[in-house]
């Protein structure tokens, strides 16, 4: 399986996906010497008030590289307004200036170059010996599949009429929930296989060697293009190109340090081509 995971080449491929660096524009509203980071106080493995999340560690590494002190602005990402509400209350309200972990192609924000690419994955007990390599694997048809709602996993299951036998999880909507819950369901046999975003569960997999992880390849076998791998970036307010450009410089010069932090949290890095289709 190692062949499908990151090697030294992944960074070049990720950078190749990026747009040209944005032109410098409005000055950021940042207080001199302080990097104000918007973060969730209770959403491991992404972020926690204790500073234990990988976004927190990435923020500290970036702050160090910029020679700035990091100050977190805490607000839940999983409140009533969801992630958009979080942005409205924090970044857009200028209470902080950067979000550490968003999809590169997200609309309405200024994004940096992606600093990692990861993927949705299948997770199932090793002992089951399933032959699952893609959403089109026939064996899925007979299995009870757990998935996160409002994700590509849900779309893929709908396209294949697999959704009626599947069990939804709403971890991204529920401030009390842990992404580990979908792994618990696999281990307890409530579902046979989980389809979820790998960075949300890699941290919890470290103590669960009985589970197998297989990337979901991008597909268009159903006609509709299905994307399961996403380049991830940092984001600033849409007019704050100055900060985005400074962050880009840090990403370029400190990529291996950032990669190391992600690896320590069990985030599996994929070259874009690892999960390509056609």
């Amino acid at each position, binding site marked *: 399986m190692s062949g499908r995971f990151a090697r030294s080449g992944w960074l070049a491929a990720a950078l190749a996906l990026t747009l040209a660096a944005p032109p410098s524009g409005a000055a950021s509203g940042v207080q001199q010497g302080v990097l104000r980071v918007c973060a969730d106080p209770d959403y491991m493995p992404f972020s926690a008030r204790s500073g234990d999340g990988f976004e927190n560690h990435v923020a500290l590494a970036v702050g160090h590289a910029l020679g700035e002190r990091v100050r977190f602005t805490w607000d839940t990402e*999983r409140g009533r307004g969801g992630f958009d509400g979080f942005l409205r209350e924090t970044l857009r309200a200028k209470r902080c200036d950067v979000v550490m972990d968003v999809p590169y192609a997200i609309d309405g924000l200024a994004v940096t170059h992606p600093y990692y690419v990861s993927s949705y994955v299948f997770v199932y007990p090793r002992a089951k010996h399933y032959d699952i390599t893609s959403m089109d694997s026939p064996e899925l048809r007979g299995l009870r599949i757990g998935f996160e709602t409002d*994700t590509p996993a849900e779309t893929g299951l709908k396209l294949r009429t697999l959704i009626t036998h599947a069990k939804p999880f709403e971890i991204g*909507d529920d401030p009390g929930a842990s992404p580990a819950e979908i792994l618990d369901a696999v281990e307890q046999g409530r579902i046979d296989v989980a389809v979820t975003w790998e960075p949300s569960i890699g941290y919890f997999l470290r103590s669960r060697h009985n589970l197998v992880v297989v990337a979901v390849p991008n597909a268009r076998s159903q006609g509709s293009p299905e994307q399961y791998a996403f380049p991830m970036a940092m984001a600033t307010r849409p007019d704050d190109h100055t900060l985005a450009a400074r962050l880009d410089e840090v990403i370029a010069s400190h990529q291996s340090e950032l990669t190391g932090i992600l690896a320590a949290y069990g985030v599996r890095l994929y070259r874009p081509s690892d999960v390509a*289709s056609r």
Partner: protein
Amino acid sequence: MKRQALAVALVAALSGSALVGGFAVTRAGAHQAQPAQSSAQTVAQTRTGTHSQLSLAALSEDPNQWVMPSLNYANTRHSTLTQITTQNVSGLKAAWTMSTGATRGHEGQPLVIGDTLYFESAYPNHIFAVDLGDYHIRWQYTPKEDPFAVSVACCDLVNRGVAYADGKIIAAALDGQILALDAATGRVVWNFKNDDPERGQTTTAAPLVVGNRVIVGVSGGEFGVRGYLTGLDLATGHMVWRAFSEGPDSDVLIGSNFSGPHNAGVSTWQGDQWKVGGGTTWGWYSYDPKLDLLYYGTGNPGTWNPSQRPGDNKWSMTIFARKPETGAAVWAFQMTPHDKWDYDGINEMILVDVQRNGETVPVLVHFDRNGFGYELDRRNGKLLLATKFDPSVNWASGIDMATGRPILNPAKATMAGVNVHNICPAAMGNKDQQPASYDPQTGYFIVPTNHNCMDYKAFSVKYKSGFPFVGAIVKMYPGPGGNRGAVIAWDPADGHIVWTDKERFPAWGGVLTTDGGVAFYGTMDGWFKAIDTKTGAPLWKFKVPSGIIANPMTYTHDGKQYVAILSGVGGWAGIGLAAGLTEPTAGLGAVNAASDLSQYTTLGGDLLVFSL
């Protein structure tokens, strides 16, 4: 020797005024056409450089054999055989059949060289040499492949057939191996690794041999891959050139003789995006020996989200003309700049001569996935004609004859986050890889088409706290009238549709026309059909074991004409239609459309051969 005499007699009987040329050609052909009987002799005879080039072109003129994937360099798929006619085709019967041993979609066609029939199955790519005298398997070879190729192959595990030259069968395996096998023994002469499934690449196209070059393309890699065409040395399998579809002119093999803009493979992209520019080359290749130009098309630009790749994205969606010896580009014509609909430009180029203003013009005819039939002067890429070959096309109202650019319908432009309804054609195009045929008797192109439309919500990437997702969805459904495909006759004089035979499913298999006035094609619901080329009137049909997405061919043996076809449903249309295509009003997941195609057919590969 018996065969040689027969072939000569046949040509003499059939070709009338072309008797002298036919005689010479057939002698050369028959002489070459005995590799299966004596391998040592064959190698000695044919390893003579340019001699084999002449021989292959000459061989393709012999209607008793079928020596290239598309019959000839012009890709006409038109046979001059006349035993099977509109009058007697109703008496066509199965002559012999065999299992291919593979169950996935079969998109190729057999070759016949001398008294041996060669074909390749879908993955795992079994390659067979079958004796036409007693149907025993002379040899069979299955390459050992990287199984990861199966995971990254997009649209089923198809293969579009083998090539022949110089006593060798040239075959591509799904995982990118290009193999030269001794046509007599099946022994591997050389093996070249053309791509890397670990990088999302696979190979499905049939190679084309031009002179000492083996031309091979690449499939795969929706992002993370840059498409290329490769020229190998026929004798050794060594790579001589590789022409990328994007990048600096030096990568695209654009030199001072190129008629188009320079460095557009970089300048029409933002930043470094050309490095993942797509433009794969998985279609058919054709060649004009007189102009010494090779023609092929490139696929869709890399990233699926068009708003992430501003610019024309050259040279994706492009017809290229290159020198086969060096790969040097001579001209290029981009059909769909900045693609927003997934209209790959890889479909075949058919080379014919037409009368224009009293002058004979060498043209290239191409039925693109975008729904337009293009006629280009193949000497220079000048656009001569472009018309819709399906009236439902609505993403563009026409093609600007001065610039060659589509005249876009703004209401059908896809954009991030907006659900655009009723775009015709759907992403599969009005025609995909299924090759058309040119019938010189009627002057018509007989074109197998798709007839689907789509709702397309382009990529809007969002973040649900902790979970990235795309709002994109493409929903395909039958086009106006409810049929999902048709076989049409298209007149190159003015680009109008002469007749239309509707089909329930996309006509995902190719067409064969013959001088008997009969055209053949197969359907996904498992019928092999003969129709009158002039009128489209049905003449004969036969229910085959599995749906057809492959291409008919014809040959003679012991003086008798045979028509052969591979059955074995699948391909993009097979998977997509079998499992994903719902009625326009049905909610996603509400209809198990798998029951639709499966009411008619089931998977499984077979070779079927018919005769009177």
